[in-house]
C-alpha cells in the first residue's frame, strides 16, 4: 500500500510536483527523491548544521523538517545558489581561503553564511561567530571559514 501524499513546492526556483509519505523528512526528500545530494546528512539530529537549506530564504535544518510542512513554500539548496558552472562570491572565497577541507560541512556553512551576508552585508566578527554557531566543522578549526566570510563582507559595497 502506498502511503504517499502529493507534495508541491518550489525548489531552487523550479516548481516541483511530487509525492511522499507523511513522515518524509525534507533532507531525505531532497537527497533521495530529488537527487539534490549537495545537502549533506551529518548528525541527522540538528546538532551539526550540515543539512542547512533555506525555506523561504531562512536557514533551516532540513533534517528536522517534515517535507509536508514546507508544502507550497520555496526551498533553496546549495545547488540553487549559482548556475552549475559558476560559484558565488562566498563559494569562491571558501576556495581561495582553504575554508573547505573534507568539504562535508561546506554546503551548510555556505547556506548559513550566505543568508547572513544577504541580510547583513558587513557583519562584525562576533556576529559571524554567533550565526555560524549551529554549523560544525571538524577540519578547519573555523579560522579559514571566518576569514572567507569576512573577505566577502569586505569586498561587498
Amino acid at each position: 500500500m502506498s502511503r504517499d501524499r502529493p507534495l508541491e513546492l518550489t525548489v531552487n526556483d523550479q516548481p516541483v510536483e511530487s509525492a511522499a509519505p507523511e513522515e518524509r523528512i525534507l533532507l531525505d526528500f531532497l537527497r533521495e527523491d530529488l537527487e539534490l545530494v549537495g545537502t549533506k546528512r551529518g548528525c541527522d539530529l540538528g546538532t551539526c548544521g550540515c543539512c542547512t537549506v533555506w525555506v523561504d530564504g531562512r536557514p533551516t535544518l532540513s533534517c528536522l523538517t517534515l517535507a509536508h510542512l514546507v508544502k507550497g513554500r520555496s526551498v533553496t539548496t546549495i545547488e540553487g545558489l549559482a548556475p552549475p558552472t559558476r560559484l558565488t562570491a562566498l563559494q569562491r572565497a571558501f576556495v581561495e581561503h582553504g575554508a573547505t577541507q573534507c568539504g562535508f560541512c561546506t554546503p551548510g556553512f555556505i547556506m548559513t553564511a550566505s543568508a547572513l551576508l544577504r541580510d547583513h552585508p558587513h557583519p562584525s566578527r562576533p556576529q559571524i561567530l554567533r550565526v555560524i554557531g549551529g554549523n560544525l566543522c571538524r577540519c578547519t578549526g573555523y579560522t579559514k571559514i571566518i576569514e572567507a566570510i569576512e573577505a566577502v563582507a569586505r569586498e561587498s559595497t
Partner: protein
Amino acid sequence: MHLDPFELHQPATVDEALCIYRDHAGDADYLAGGTDLLPNYKMHLNLRRHLIALGGIPELGGIALGRLGSMTRLADLEGSGPVAGAYPGVAEAVAEVATPLVRASGTVGGNLMLETRCFFFNQSRFWRASLGYCLKAEGAVCHVVPQKEKCYATFSGDLAPALAVLDAEVEVATDRGRTRIPLIDLYDLRGDGIRRHTLPPSAIVVAVHLPPIARQRLGTYRKLRIRPAFDFPELGVAVAVRFEGSSVAELRVAVGGLETAPRRFDELTDPLAGQQLTEERIRELAGAITRSVRPVYNTFLPPDYRRRMTGVFVRRALVDLAPASSAAA
C-alpha cells in the same frame, strides 16, 4: 534516519487539534518546531502513530508585549527588539537556547514542553536495549537512581525559569475549555518524572501571558554548559527583582537543568521583601538554594558541581542586579 510511519495532521484551529487528539488519544503527539520531538522520534523514543502539527493554527502565533503565542519561533522572539528589551532575562535565556538554526525552528511552547533528558534516555534504541531500556521508555527500572517508581530525567528548557520569575501565566486549551495557570504550575517535582508537565495529555499551550509588573523587574539568566552553543543547560538560573528605593519590592529566583522540573524559591525570597539586598542576605539566599536542590548524575557535569554552581550563579546574578549602594562589597 528515516522516521517510522505516522499520520501527519495539520489542523487549522485549536479545537480541531483537540478533536484530532481525542480521536487518537494515547497514540498522538503535538508537533511544534520539531527540534526536540523529531530527534527523539529518530531515536525511537516513545513513538506515536499520529503527529498533530500546530504550525498552521493562526491563534498560536503572534508576539507582543504581554503575550507570546506558543508557536512563536525562538529566533523571532530573540529578534523582537521591543519584547526582548522589556524582558531582559527572557532575551538572555532565548539567545542561549541551542543554536541559531535550532532557534529558527524551535518555539516558545515547544521549549516549555521540552521532553526531559537523561544519559540513559537520549540514546539509540540499540544502546537502550542493551540495558533493558529505562523507566521513561519501554523499561521498568531507572538506571540513575535504581528503583521502579520515579524517573530522574532532567528538565532542560531555558525559557521556563526565565518566564517563571516574571510571574508569567500560560493560557491552556483542553477538552473542557480554556484556562490560565501560573507558568510554574506546568511543572511538579513531586510527579513520577516520566510525564514532563502537569497538564492533561491532550492540552495545548496557546500562549504565554506576562503581567505588566514584569516590565518593571530587572532580570537576568545564567546558563552553565560546556560549549557556548547547542548544549542544553547543566544549570540555568533566572532572577528577577524590582526595587523600591534601595529595598526589594519583589524578588524571584528560579532554576532549571537540575531536577525533573524547574523550581521557583518563593519561600526563600518572599521574606526579603522590604529588605536591603545586602551581601550577607545574598550569600544566605544563595546558600539556602544550594542546599535545597538535588541534581543527579544524568547529564555531562557532576551533580555536586552543578549544585554548588547554583549558589555561585544566584549570588553573581543578585550582585549584578542590586543597586550599588546595597550590595557593595
